[in-house]
């Protein structure tokens, strides 16, 4: 999982006195009976890259479009830089958007596309030329200024779209699946380029994506959305290491979820009896749940150790047979089938080139550290 520290070094969202740059206050958007966005409240701070992450149809794009002014909230309000945006049309907002389809004007050259917004604002001609040139330099498209969009590759179009939305120096830039149309290699490079550009210009980014890896790389904070609601908002590592629900744990990265019953509930530790593991799970931190409640322990595949010798102790140990192996180069994924039929996913880094390989149908023991499981109650 590639997770960089975001561009923000301090964490303004932890400071109760910090003034949020974008405030979404109890915003709901309904289309007929369907609530695309359901009572969402959100605070985004200056200089952040905030990612709205969710599957398609979760309402993330609708929320973005409301920030851009293309949809009006059915209820609630949005403040940008302290100003109520209710009733402010897109062309009067201090916001620019990069569209998923890029929406480049096909009858204009790259240069004209980028200059469009500045001309609209009646910026003096010489200044337009300067700013367009600087921007094209920043996205490395200086040699393509005279080309038309249909003469560009996907990656180049993406950069024109970025240049066009940044050249007006918006306070807030909205990006709708900015890297969606690019292939994997290009996408990775562009992710880091986006971060460096954002760092240079200090613009606040709100990014919509369905790709959790993209969200992890780009974001200072991620808001995970499901069925119109933000189910959890936090830094990438918070979301990954401390998911608040089965949904988040499952959506962000891959995870093993073990269902069980709380049998010991102490402030320092809990013990969960899991039917599907035929084992007890010992967790070295307390949780808040009713005694005997059904809970779920989420354990990341890379936090499970696999060995052919039985480890010590009886907690957090299960036994099974290797059902499938996927070799990915840097690491391998093992699917281990337990006696109960439950399949556990384990990843192991391939640290040695000549490691004694565990192979198909071999009996293995799986174990994990007591600090690894995250216990969620929903």
């Amino acid at each position, binding site marked *: 999982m590639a997770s960089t520290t975001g561009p923000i070094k301090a964490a303004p969202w932890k400071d109760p006195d910090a003034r949020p740059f974008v405030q979404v206050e109890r915003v709901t958007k309904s289309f007929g009976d369907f609530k695309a966005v359901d009572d969402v409240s959100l605070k985004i701070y200056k200089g952040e890259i905030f990612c709205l992450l969710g599957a398609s149809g979760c309402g993330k794009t609708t929320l973005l479009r409301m920030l851009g002014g293309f949809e009006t909230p059915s209820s609630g309000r949005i403040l940008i830089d302290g100003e109520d945006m209710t009733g402010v049309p897109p062309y009067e907002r201090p916001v620019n958007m990069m569209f998923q389809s890029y929406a480049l004007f*096909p009858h204009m050259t790259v240069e004209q596309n980028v200059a469009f917004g500045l001309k609209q604002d009646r910026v003096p001609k010489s200044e337009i030329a300067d700013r367009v040139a600087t921007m094209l330099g920043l996205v490395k498209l200086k040699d393509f200024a005279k080309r038309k969009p249909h003469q560009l590759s996907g990656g180049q179009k993406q950069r024109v779209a970025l240049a066009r939305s940044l050249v007006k120096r918006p306070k807030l830039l909205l990006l709708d699946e900015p890297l969606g149309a690019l292939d994997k290699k290009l996408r990775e490079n562009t992710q880091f380029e986006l971060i460096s550009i954002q760092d240079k210009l200090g613009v606040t980014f709100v990014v919509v994506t369905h790709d959790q890896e993209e969200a992890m790389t780009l974001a200072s904070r991620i808001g995970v959305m499901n069925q119109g609601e933000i189910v959890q908002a936090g830094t990438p590592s918070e979301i990954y290491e401390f998911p608040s629900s089965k949904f988040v744990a499952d959506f962000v990265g891959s995870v093993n979820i073990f269902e069980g019953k709380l049998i010991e509930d102490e402030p320092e530790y809990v013990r969960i009896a899991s039917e599907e593991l035929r084992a007890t799970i010992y967790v070295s931190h307390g949780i808040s749940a009713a005694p005997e409640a059904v809970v779920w322990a989420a354990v990341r595949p890379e936090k499970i150790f696999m060995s052919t010798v039985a480890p010590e102790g009886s907690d957090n140990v299960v036994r099974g047979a290797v059902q499938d192996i996927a070799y990915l180069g840097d690491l391998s994924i093992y699917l281990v089938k337990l006696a109960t039929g439950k399949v556990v996913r384990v990843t192991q880094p391939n640290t040695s080139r000549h490691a004694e390989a565990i192979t198909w149908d071999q009996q293995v023991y799986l174990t994990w550290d007591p600090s690894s499981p995250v216990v969620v109650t929903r």
Partner: protein
Amino acid sequence: MSSGGRRPTPFLERFGVTGRALVVALPFVWLLLFFVVPFVIVLKISFSDVDLAIPPYKPLLEWVGQNALAIHLNFNNYAFLFTDSLYVNALVNSLKVAAISTLFCLVIGYPMAYGIARAQARTRNLLLLLVILPFWTSLLLRVYAWIGLLKANGVINNLLIWVGLIHEPLTLLYTPLAMYIGIVYSYLPFMILPLYANLEKMDWQLLEAAEDLGCRPYQAFYKITLPLSRNGMLAGSMLVFIPAVGEFVIPALLGGPNALMIGRVLWDEFFSNRAWPVASAVAMLLLVILVPFMMWYQSVQARESAGAK
């Protein structure tokens, strides 16, 4: 020799006629029969002398004496077109009427095409059907219906009198206004359909992008939609303009005696004066004037289907 042997060459292929050549040849044969041959006949007539005979012109080629073939080429028919101001006036007037009608079709047709293109899929089909529906009845019938609407005790006058806006019936029929109404009404679908086909392909997100960059909706229309629909406008305009120049029926039925259109002059020369050579010369002149427009239309079409903008 292998037992399979060679497939015997089909009969036609022995003469170099393949199925492929046949398919390609078909439209050419069609054009030859129904365009080139009549065209050559008309061209021929336009160079002959009038004669009181059936058909009413003298042959171009004539045997004189034993072994001599005489060719009579009469250029007077063309010269005549430029000596009598009637023809030039009719031509100029036709071009003017066609141009004004095209403009009105564009102004009326654009919002309609735009509305259809932006309507929801279900309404869109209904609206398109409504545009095409008039074609299901004959043009002549529809023009006669306009006579019923426009005449002194017609629907429009009666309605206006009944409402109390006027007390005397207005003279609507047999005026230039009636003629323009007829032409614009009849040719409007030819403007709407290519425009719709063009606008329908448009990515409406471009307008959101323009608004995002600071355009008000009308500015976005002017800077994005309008330039992108240029080919549609040109195609529609040519489809209206070209046939409207030679329009004969509508001016004759709605325009009254003063509507001097080249199509009508041609009709009169041919049927009333039985001056086939002059009528043919008029037809050739009209063709020469319209060919550049047709070529322009063709290039617009080629550009549109190539998708290059």
